[in-house]
């Protein structure tokens, strides 16, 4: 999948938790400016990591249950999932290079 997939309260478990690959989930909202800023970077990463890491985005305005379940209280928040569990979290607008480091760690870390 080369584009981040929009998921909501209903589809989240099936798409992210049941996935065979690790997943990066971008929690965002339309009124959050840095979220709009990070979106093109996440889109680029989705292309670069296609086949290795799945990418999804959750609009916290529409899917508050998922946001609450993972205690998201700040956006943009990127949650990294592996084996159905959140294993890493990045809050706020961060450089692409830093996101890549975290994605690489997600792929190499056997734990």
């Amino acid at each position, binding site marked *: 999948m080369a584009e981040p997939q929009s998921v909501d309260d209903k589809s989240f478990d099936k798409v992210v938790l049941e996935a065979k690959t690790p997943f990066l989930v971008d929690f965002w909202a339309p009124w959050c*400016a840095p979220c709009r800023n990070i979106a093109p*970077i996440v889109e680029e990463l989705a292309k670069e990591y296609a086949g290795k890491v799945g990418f999804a985005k959750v609009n916290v305005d529409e899917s508050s249950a998922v946001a609450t379940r993972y205690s998201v209280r700040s956006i943009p928040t990127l949650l990294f999932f592996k084996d159905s569990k959140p294993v890493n979290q990045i809050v*706020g607008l961060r450089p692409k290079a830093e996101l890549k480091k975290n994605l690489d760690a997600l792929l190499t870390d056997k734990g």
Partner: protein
Amino acid sequence: MVDKVYQLIIIGGGPAGLSAGIYAARSRLDTLLIEKAGLGGQILNAEWVENYPGFPQGISGAELGSLMSQQAEKYNLPTAFAEVEGIEVRGEEKILKTSEGQYRAKAVIIAGGSEYSKLDVPGEEEFRGRGVSYCAMCDGAFFKDEVVAVVGGGNVALNDALFITKFASKVIVIHRRDQLRATKVLQERALANPKMEFIWDTVLESIKGDSQVRELQLRNVKTGGKSNLSVSGVFIAVGLKPNIEYLRGLLSLSDGGFIPVNGNMETEVPGIFAAGDIRAGSIRQVIAAAGDGAIAAIAAEAYISSR
């Protein structure tokens, strides 16, 4: 990418960098703008900008930032997402080492701006995203009917606090002095807002909680007295610091870490210019950043054509 030498590279995609980019692109300079995390800059975090001429009703910071990047796009300003890690001057050429490889240019405008300062108190990093926030616009809505604190006394702190009153039941401003630094208009609004309270002469010492923020430990700087405050969120707005880590050794910086420039935005290194919040003496307003960017681009063009 390795062999190409740009005429001009602009570091930073905030108002200063975008303004420089618009001028450079219209002058048909072969320009690249490098931004680490998304175009627009700090102004994106301002809920409402009321002092930028041309918008008598005011304009949201997000929209103003977005309009500026659209204007740069209109003139086909090339941009790259990369983090600059160092600049080396070899003869007249400037070599930029970045997270995405090396870029070369004849002239460089440093418009890397600033980022929010942290308080560096216990709990601040631990509860980031779980009640500790630096972006009221982003996170205010998560605190509906809850009690929230804002640390700071400047324009950003009061704008943030006023914005959060739309959601929170109470917003308590914690300020280390006994008066506010913010513009009078904002002070009047804040002091008149029934949801707002102020704790003066007080600093935040630590942030406590469990799965989220529960309590702030405070200290009065005049009496030394300590107290606790129950809140579910704390927004930190204690000013900005320049992004200068990669410039150490290249330029001498002012005490606060800003870049000294002359009236043409020239630094001590020929062909390297600085514009916006990052330059020494900046009033750190969006209007000034845009002006600096224009001056720097025109000076850079003169420098390039004189070589």
